[in-house]
């Protein structure tokens, strides 16, 4: 097969970006929707090619298509940086995720972003993001991976700050960039460490070295942990999770694509991509699992109490990403990526649903919604499907991947298993809390002074087709995507486990105790939410005041923002250390300079006053001078 087609997967969105950015936006901005069509077309092309690539990879030996490299730069003799692509099962799967979700989101955005003054800019960034994300999953060496890693970060920054005139958006964008960069610092350090010890950036070569044992011991551990630090930043894992909730300031389709389905999952992908390295370092792998487990429950706990629907989803995302990390740490690539795959669809769906709701009501605050089921049936239906899926209800996709993670955790990390179980309950609860608060009961009026969109006064209404159709497609995927691994095919494709019959797989969970427990936990979570938010059998306020300290703890996000922003950044660094440096610079370093200059001037004035105009003083100086020379010679000469 021509390799150019594989390149095209990446290049099509890039062309789209270039066309929109350099041609459409400056010159034909009046053409509404043009940018969207270009983007959809190009990403559609990428999707088609990705699907083709997926099948080609499935058919290929070792599930891998070799792609010849292009020489990009030669740093020195022997060290050549190639611009190369990987096309293996992991990449193929990721490509599907990226292109599908991206395509859905772009279609959806045609409705959502209609009339926004930044419409063209939006599509330009979106194309760039998609291209970068595709590049990220296809890159065959760490350097390029890092390049695209940063590029998606940039797009994330730009899109979070899309409505830059809102200070909160600008703040959030900055925060996202800096916090993820903190992780990138570790990533870069890890790359450097690997390069130092192996002299290569090539991912496959690194794999081989790790497998062969040439790369081992503390070096490997530290390198792996460094890389994982990058993943922590990007995937918003504890303790670098603070940026993701704020990132919800961006347009909702952006949240769906970048901050739910794809970019934030890049961390998970990275660990998967470098998995042989982690595999050979128990410490690193354990670290991944522990961080993942902690993040899962930690984020879920905050999701319980949020009133902003997107924030609930954001914490849910963090929590699910934690799951994926846990899956990677406890089970392996197939497990983690399997959840990533499924999560992408239902989480994108959830976000798009939230966007649809917002489109109708002008708000994200669930306390202002309610009763939307009536007005927005399609949105409601798809949202519930996604919620069931994420809660892990059989036979939706979420069930299958979550189940795998739980089984593997139980086997390898028992402590984390219990946390994960609690998280299952919490997930179900907060998701259905959101469902009931949003769609159940009576409409509570939406945003009092709607901004951003017009015409929300009066009754909310269902979103246009262009928005609901993607919802439906994603809902279908949320239901069906799980079935891929019911036969064990996905796992086998990723090099894990064996295949078996469809129906065997489908009902196999019911023969085990563990799925039962998780189903029960999820069910009870849904039930509790129903009781509290649909039927008001239990007053949320009562519960809230009962667990006041806990509630506050969750609601204030464990004071992490305060810790980071106020205590560390603002006070310790800006007002403390940095201010101290500034004072030091102004007074000590510069002070020394000015002091020397001033000293010269002052002594000049002083010496000048020896020149009194008294002739005889001058004569005296001649005498003293001669005597001085004589004495100096006498004593030193």
């Amino acid at each position, binding site marked *: 097969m021509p390799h150019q087609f594989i390149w095209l997967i990446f290049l099509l969105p890039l062309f789209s970006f270039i066309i929109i950015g350099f041609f459409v936006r400056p010159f034909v901005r009046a053409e509404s929707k043009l940018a969207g069509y270009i983007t959809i077309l190009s990403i559609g092309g990428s999707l088609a090619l990705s699907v083709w690539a997926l099948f080609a990879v499935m058919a290929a030996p070792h599930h891998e298509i070799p792609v010849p490299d292009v020489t990009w730069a030669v*740093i020195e003799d022997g060290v050549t940086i190639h611009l190369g692509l990987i096309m293996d099962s992991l990449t193929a799967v990721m490509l599907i995720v990226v292109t599908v979700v991206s395509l859905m989101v772009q279609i959806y955005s045609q409705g959502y972003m209609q009339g926004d003054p930044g419409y063209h800019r939006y599509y330009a960034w979106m194309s760039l993001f998609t291209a970068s994300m595709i590049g990220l999953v296809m890159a065959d060496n760490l350097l390029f991976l890092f390049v695209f890693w*940063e590029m998606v970060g940039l797009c994330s920054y730009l899109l979070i700050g899309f409505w*830059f*005139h809102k200070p909160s958006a*600008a703040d959030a964008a900055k925060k996202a960039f800096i916090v993820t960069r903190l992780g990138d610092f570790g990533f870069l350090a890890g790359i450097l460490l690997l*390069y130092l010890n192996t002299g290569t950036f090539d991912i496959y070569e690194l794999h081989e070295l790790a497998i062969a044992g040439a790369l081992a011991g503390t070096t490997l551990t530290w390198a792996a942990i460094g890389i994982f630090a990058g993943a922590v930043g990007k995937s918003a894992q504890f303790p670098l999770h603070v940026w993701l909730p704020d990132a919800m300031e961006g347009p909702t389709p952006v949240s769906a694509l970048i901050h739910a389905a794809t970019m934030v999952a890049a961390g998970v992908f990275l660990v998967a991509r470098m998995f042989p390295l982690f595999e050979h370092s128990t410490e690193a792998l354990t670290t991944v699992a522990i961080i993942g487990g902690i993040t899962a429950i930690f984020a879920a706990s905050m999701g319980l109490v949020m009133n902003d629907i997107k924030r609930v989803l954001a914490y849910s995302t963090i929590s699910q990403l934690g799951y994926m990390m846990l899956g990677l740490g406890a089970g392996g690539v197939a497990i983690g990526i399997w959840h990533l795959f499924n999560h992408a669809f239902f989480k994108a769906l959830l976000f798009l649903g939230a966007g649809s709701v917002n489109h109708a009501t002008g708000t994200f605050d669930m306390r202002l919604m309610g009763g939307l089921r009536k007005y927005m049936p399609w949105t409601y239906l798809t949202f519930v499907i996604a919620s069931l899926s994420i809660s892990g209800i059989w036979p939706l996709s979420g069930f299958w991947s979550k189940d795998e993670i739980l089984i593997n955790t139980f086997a390898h990390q028992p402590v984390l298993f219990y946390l994960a179980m609690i998280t299952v309950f919490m997930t179900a609860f907060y998701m259905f809390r959101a469902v009931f608060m949003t769609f159940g009961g009576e409409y509570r009026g939406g945003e009092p002074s709607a901004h951003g969109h017009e015409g929300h006064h009066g009754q909310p209404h269902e979103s246009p087709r262009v928005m609901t159709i993607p919802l439906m497609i994603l809902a279908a995927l949320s239901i069906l995507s799980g079935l891929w691994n019911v036969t064990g095919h996905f796992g086998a494709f990723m090099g894990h486990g064996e295949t078996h019959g469809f129906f065997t797989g489908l009902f196999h969970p019911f023969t085990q105790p563990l799925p039962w427990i998780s189903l029960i936990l999820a069910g009870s979570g849904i039930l509790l939410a129903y009781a509290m938010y649909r039927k008001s059998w239990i007053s949320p306020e009562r519960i809230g005041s009962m667990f006041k300290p806990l509630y506050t703890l969750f609601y204030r996000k464990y004071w992490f923002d305060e810790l980071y922003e106020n205590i560390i950044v603002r006070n310790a660094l800006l007002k403390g250390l*940095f201010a101290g440096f500034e004072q030091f610079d102004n007074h000590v370093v510069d002070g020394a*300079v000015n002091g020397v200059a001033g000293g010269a001037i002052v002594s000049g004035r002083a010496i000048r006053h020896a020149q009194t105009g008294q002739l005889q003083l001058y004569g005296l100086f001649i005498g003293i001078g001669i005597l001085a020379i004589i004495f100096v010679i006498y004593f030193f000469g």
Partner: protein
Amino acid sequence: MLGSGYLTTILFLPAVGAVLVAFVLSNRDRVIKWTAALFTFVPLALSLILFALFDRSPEAAGLIQFQERALWIAPINAYYHLGVDGLSLPLMVLTAFLGFLAVLISWKIHLRVREYFAWLLLLETSILGVFLSLDLLLFFIMWEIEVIPMYFLINIWGAGRKEYSAIKYVVYTLFGSAFMLAGILSLYFSTGSLNMVEIGQRGLGLVQSIMPAAPIFWLLLIGFAVKLPVFPFHTWLPDAHTDAPTAVSVMLAGVLIKMGGYGMIRLCVTMFPPVAQQYAVILVILAIIGVLYGAAVTMRQTDFKRLIAYSSISHMGYVLLGIFALGKVSLVGAALQMFSHGLVTGLLFAMVGLVMHNAHERDLRKLGGLARQVPIITVVFSIAGLASLGLPSTSGFAAEFLVFVGSFSSSLVPGIQVYTILGVFGVVVTAGYILWMLQRVFYGPPLEQYDGTADADVLERVYMFAFVAVIMLVGIYPAIITDIIKLGISPIAGMLGG
């Protein structure tokens, strides 16, 4: 034997332009500006031709190309000796590029136009001279000539505490070059030659026999350290950058401070490899202090230009790190970082100047929400900012990455890995202040007082585009520069044995 004469033409055309502007032409602004543009554009075009003609084959490693040599001062054996190699060619191109753009950037100067352009052109000649000279005396002369134009440019067309800044710049620079002069004299005494190439090739055999090499190394280094600048010799920089007129800031940040790094590689490292190795740790530590301390102080700045100025201190720390990590890759990285920083900071200063010119405000606390009013400036500024914080696909990333990779894998300096990691951490802080600045100036709700602020006009768009294009070009395909740089670096690295 004089060579093709290309380099002489490039070198002296701006000076000829300066003389024309100052003494010959009528005092009409348009005539002067067009003359200045012409006399900077031709060198740019010529230097691009040289860039294309430059022999990139591996056999050319370490070769000086386009040499011109003629006896100049017989009694002290000084030659008029010009030439470029892989190290100086990119810097020459950069200087010609920025020199031309500086004229465009200065198009809106209306105060004492004749003098302004004369000084600006003279400045370009002197900077070009530094990069082109292969004779120590010529090198030093060119190094010194730059001071006077700078003094006038800051003093007359500057802003703020311009007089203080100008004299501070001069005294600081002269202070540094005072030591450098002593170093050059010692070098001349030790080797009996002023030929930079020859001294570099003959190595240290001669030097050590007469005079210990370490003092010479340090004398030279101090001169370059002031220019680069290296902590604690950096305090002239924020003042000078802040108070200089825009185009001068561009030149200052863009190429002037590169003279320091260039000199370090060309003289300190090439001529004293063992000494450089001996003291590399100290310099690497200073580099890291520069990176982190510079970044920390940058975070605290509230003046638009001052912030960028301080960021230069931080960025130049990477250059120092790359140089004294003494690895081949790190040296290539350092050279690329000089090139890249020249473009990026040049653009940043140009943009800051534009914002200040159009909005009449430079206090970051008072600026805000400009993105709506000046979208083009915003976009370009953002690109420059992102390049400055080392975003991939911009030249900043390629350069910093090479510095990091090269330093981290250098084998000549003990503990370099730790220092490099600390340096990498500087990238995070950089992101902090760049984004804070972008947010502060451009984001947030539009402010009323900036309604009607002019966006970039056609001329400004032209130079912005030129900047951005080169930044992206080097970022996406750095080999265009590194192929050349490595030809210059490889013999040096060979001497270091790294």
